[in-house]
């Protein structure tokens, strides 16, 4: 069976959270390739395939932390959703923040959804699995060439 792969861009500066997310996504039913960058500037360079990211694969889904070095996640989200080419890529904001202003503002900026990262390990894993299940198996992502065939 010819199986397609879902490409994910994780924008996250905590190595611990990166490793956890990688582990969870590796075990998914749907084949996926998770790439990470650790700051906001790299996130945008990756999406624009600039410099060292010239060969970057366009992601089908972006997981975006808010508190990032170099360029804040809020500014990254704003740029993505203002770009006619990139705006359609779903962005899951995944952050330690549970501040109401952040929640409202990110939805105003067209974040597709906002998730507060749990501190508890088991809950973090549950959340990561839920993201995977929902966005890979339930939702239709906006790029059919990367859609896996359903088994």
């Amino acid at each position, binding site marked *: 069976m010819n199986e397609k792969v879902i490409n994910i861009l994780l924008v996250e500066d905590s190595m611990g959270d990166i490793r956890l997310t990688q582990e969870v996504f590796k075990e998914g039913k749907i084949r996926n390739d998770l790439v990470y960058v650790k700051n906001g500037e790299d996130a945008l360079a990756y999406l624009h395939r600039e410099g060292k990211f010239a060969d970057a694969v366009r992601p089908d889904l972006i997981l975006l932390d808010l508190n990032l070095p170099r360029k804040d996640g809020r500014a990254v989200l704003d740029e993505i*959703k203002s770009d*006619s080419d990139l*705006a*359609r*890529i*779903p962005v899951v904001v995944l952050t330690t923040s*549970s501040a*109401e202003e952040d*929640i*409202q503002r990110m*939805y*105003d900026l*067209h974040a*597709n*959804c*906002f*998730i*507060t990262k*749990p501190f508890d390990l088991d*809950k973090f894993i*549950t*959340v990561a699995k*839920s*993201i995977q*299940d*929902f*966005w890979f198996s*339930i*939702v*239709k992502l*906006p790029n*059919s060439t990367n859609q896996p065939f359903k088994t």
Partner: protein
Amino acid sequence: MSFQDFGKSIDILLVEDNPGDIRLTQEAFKEGKVFNNLHVVNDGEEAVEFLYQRGKYKDVPRPDLILLDLNLPKLDGRAVLAEIKADTDLRRIPVVILTTSKAEEDILRTYDLHANCYITKPIELEEFINIVHNIENFWLSIVKLPKA
């Protein structure tokens, strides 16, 4: 287990003209873990009236989540989506497109219009219920919704 903090129950607006789908969705949401109120309108014009709390809808709550079919009488779901996402007050409400269409143009166009996610309704009954349970679990228990 819910990651959502809320003092009240969640209000959901279902914009759907198919009575069978409405019934199924109502049943599935009733079985959910999170206390919710499902409001139903049957066409795009009613959806807009509801959201702007006009006329007979002047006392309705602002929904926390919208489930939106695309092929609707009176005003198309795509037009309803465009209106919601252009309005400074309404745009933050997450819109889950729930439609029979799997057309690539529909998928791309609705994401361009800032639909929060796009789901094709399964034809099979059990799959349909499963999808609605998944929507309920993800949007009501995992995600933080903006305060209405």
